[in-house]
């Protein structure tokens, strides 16, 4: 079995007197893997990245890179000795150096011919041919972003960390650049850890995703697994287009105000649960004696999303591709056709 490339063991970091930015974070990333830390802003994911790079020192816990301890109570290897490429959210390109100067900055102790060859190789990989003599301010946003990536890839460091790599770009550009960036990173063969609050970015680029919230890692898994079986309400909220319905479990079945369902295996062993209701698993029909009232309908993408308020006050959403024949204020009958039953423990106050 190979040694994991990045290992965090119960890492904790607190700034000032507030709550910990990162709390008992444990994580193991295999060589060559692309891993995404995904979560809302302020969840501690950037701090985790900076701890690994060595820009911050953990208060507690241990960080290993390729089996070597780089940070714990006694050790603190400075960033310049960690051999980690870092792509900054604001790119942090050196404004006084050309593209070549930036990309070649980390190539030290390399002969000038090898250096030029490596720069050319990385520029080619990043589709920056012919731009080597430009200065950062002469490049478009997307080009600057690729220079930042190329600069982090150029040295033969085994690890690349990316902090919100696409967040500084226009939404229209982001989609195409995401695919491009994915290709470049995969082609480099390096271990990649990226941090993002963009769900599509994490799902499209990562082999595995760690969902973070409040400084803690909520769940780790392959994108599909996370989507199919979110472990907590928080993860479900971040990962799935879903709403939640209070439910009562009794034995092998659960009852909700719109019907009863079999409780699948692995459901929480408590009575009070919530049922995950995905937008595309709900259907509605106009019915004057129905249990729901249409509160709102909005056009989204090719179809419509209809907001329905149930008698208990719970709100659910339903997505239909055809134009719905229900109007705001009308009563509807709601039917649920779950593909997989996902039951979650009810949070306090939920």
């Amino acid at each position: 079995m190979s040694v994991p490339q990045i290992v965090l063991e119960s890492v904790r970091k607190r700034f000032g007197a507030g709550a910990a930015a990162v709390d008992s974070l444990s994580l193991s990333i295999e060589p060559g893997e692309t891993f995404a830390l995904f979560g809302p802003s302020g969840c501690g994911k950037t701090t985790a990245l900076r701890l690994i790079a060595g820009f911050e020192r953990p208060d507690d816990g241990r960080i290993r890179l390729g089996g070597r301890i780089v940070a714990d109570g006694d050790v603190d290897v400075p960033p310049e000795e960690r051999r980690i490429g870092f792509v900054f959210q604001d790119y942090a390109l050196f404004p006084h150096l050309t593209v070549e100067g930036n990309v070649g900055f980390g190539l030290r102790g390399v002969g000038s011919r090898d250096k030029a060859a490596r720069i050319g190789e990385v520029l080619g990989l990043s589709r920056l041919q012919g731009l080597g003599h430009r200065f950062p301010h002469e490049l478009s946003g997307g080009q600057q972003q690729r220079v930042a990536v190329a600069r982090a890839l150029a040295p033969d460091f085994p690890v690349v960390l990316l902090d919100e790599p696409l967040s500084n770009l226009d939404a229209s550009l982001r989609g195409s650049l995401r695919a491009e960036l994915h290709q470049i990173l995969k082609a480099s063969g390096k271990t990649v850890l990226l941090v993002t609050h963009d769900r599509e970015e994490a799902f499209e680029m990562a082999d595995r995703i760690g969902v973070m919230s409040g400084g803690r890692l909520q769940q780790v898994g392959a994108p599909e697994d996370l989507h199919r079986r979110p472990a907590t309400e928080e993860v479900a909220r971040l990962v799935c287009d879903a709403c939640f319905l209070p439910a009562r479990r009794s034995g092998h079945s659960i009852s909700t105000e719109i019907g009863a369902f079999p409780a699948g295996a692995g459901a929480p062993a408590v009575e009070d649960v919530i049922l995950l209701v995905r937008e595309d698993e709900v259907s509605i029909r106009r019915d004057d004696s129905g249990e729901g009232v249409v509160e709102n309908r909005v056009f989204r993408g090719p179809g419509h999303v209809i907001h329905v308020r149930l008698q208990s006050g719970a709100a659910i959403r339903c997505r239909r591709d055809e134009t719905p024949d229900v109007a705001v204020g009308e009563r509807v009958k709601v039917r649920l056709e779950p593909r997989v039953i996902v039951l979650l423990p009810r949070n306090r106050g939920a």
Partner: protein
Amino acid sequence: MPAIGKARRQNLGGFSAAAWLVAVVVAAPVLAVVWNLLTPRWEVWQHLAQTMLFELVRNTALLLLGVGLLAGVLGTSLAWLVSAHRFPGRSFFEWALVLPMAVPAYVIAFVFAGLFGYTGPVATYLRAAFGPDAFFPDVRTYPGVVVVMSLVLYPYVYLLARAGFASLGAAPFEAARSLGSRHPFWRVGFPLARPAIATGLALALMETLADFGAVSVLGYRTFTTAIYRVWFGMFDRVAAGQLAVALMLFAVVLLSFERWARGRARFVQRHGRPATEALPPLSSARALVASGFCGGVLFFAFLLPTGVLAYWTARAAVEQKLPPNFGSLLTNTLALGAAAALTTLAAALVLAYGQRLAGSRSLAWASRIAGLGYAVPGSVIAVGVLLILSGADRALGRLVERTTGVELGLVLTGSALGLVFAYLVRFVSVAFYTVEAGLESIAPSLDEAARSLGATPRRLLSRIHAPLLKGSVLTASILVLVDVMKEMPATMLIRPFGTDTLAVDVWQRTAESMWREASLPALTIVLAGLLPVILLVRLGRRGQSVLPS
């Protein structure tokens, strides 16, 4: 976002210590003066109170009041005109109205004294035309002093007010117009820019308080002239020290006012349309009045004094009345300026880097203390420096006499070292704020990027910081060099015997009404003074906030 950029704190103790040393050195002269305050000499105060104190306080207060009013009105109205209206020459006046800043108050004062004095061409002409009792505008009066000083100090108010108006953009004025207010100066422009105007006013008043040359040429007695007279005329160092305390109290009031105003000023740069597009165009008659007003101010504050200086210099050249020692005046001045620039810059870099790397609260205090020098009048700093140097000389003399038996005399007092010390105290803030702004524009992520790519701190400094800071270091050196060239009160008090500078020469000759002989050194100072003004204008174009120089 976590607090970024607080790099590892190991091995930074040296930096903190150096930064504190700079702060202590810079604060020492002011502390020496304050020490005087804590040990008041009542008999000296009694004497001062009987002879001049009342007059000095009244004169200084009246001067601040007058210049505050006139420079405030001039600066604000000109800034409002060019920021919010279109009229012929607007874009020219926008930068040209900063030019009077290049003219030191003592230069415009002696030019006006020469032009409008009793024997000057204006008065002579008026007497020839209207008889011997004809009225002529005498500048050696209270209104004269106020007008002359306001003409070259309004640019402080103008610059800050303009930045304040510009930062508003068109939006608030469009909003005001949509709500039915056609000329929204009093209801929108002025209230929003008031903190900026107040900051500019405070800076102008600090210059007024510190001025020595203009008031002494125009025969208006203030604390600065009194300190000089008491020090050199009566050799009464104790009384001079007590007067410095009184002047310092005025400075503290102004500084508090400035801090208060600056704290409320927010120069949010909005990349919107300028206010000129949101307001109705001036009628053509009014537009002409606006052009005339701007042109008039520019004429009296800059074109007339520089033109007259050039004419007098030419006449002096023809009459062979140019100062024969001009070469040595220039080299003395430049050598002192260069020494001061180097010292000041080294201190500023230590402070700025200490703050960036160690970033502790105590260091922030150290640089804040060191940054207050611009608010302390040169006369106060000079007195403080002399108190320290003479104390050091006494101690050194005792030590040498005890160990070798040789009488040392005064080594430090009256040396160029003392002068550089005083310049450091007065101008380190100029260099510090410039370098700090340059350093702040280097994002902390650049440091981190370089280090993650394997750069050691040394390589980080040489490959990233040095090339990126070059511009601000150069700017800071120019600002300090030119400030030293213009500096008069501290130079007059501390200069080594026989070492004359351009400013000292101007003062000596104008004290004897030798206007033409003084014009070449004065013109040189004005030309040098144009350098930082050009830098300032370019900075203003890029939309950066303007700091006092």
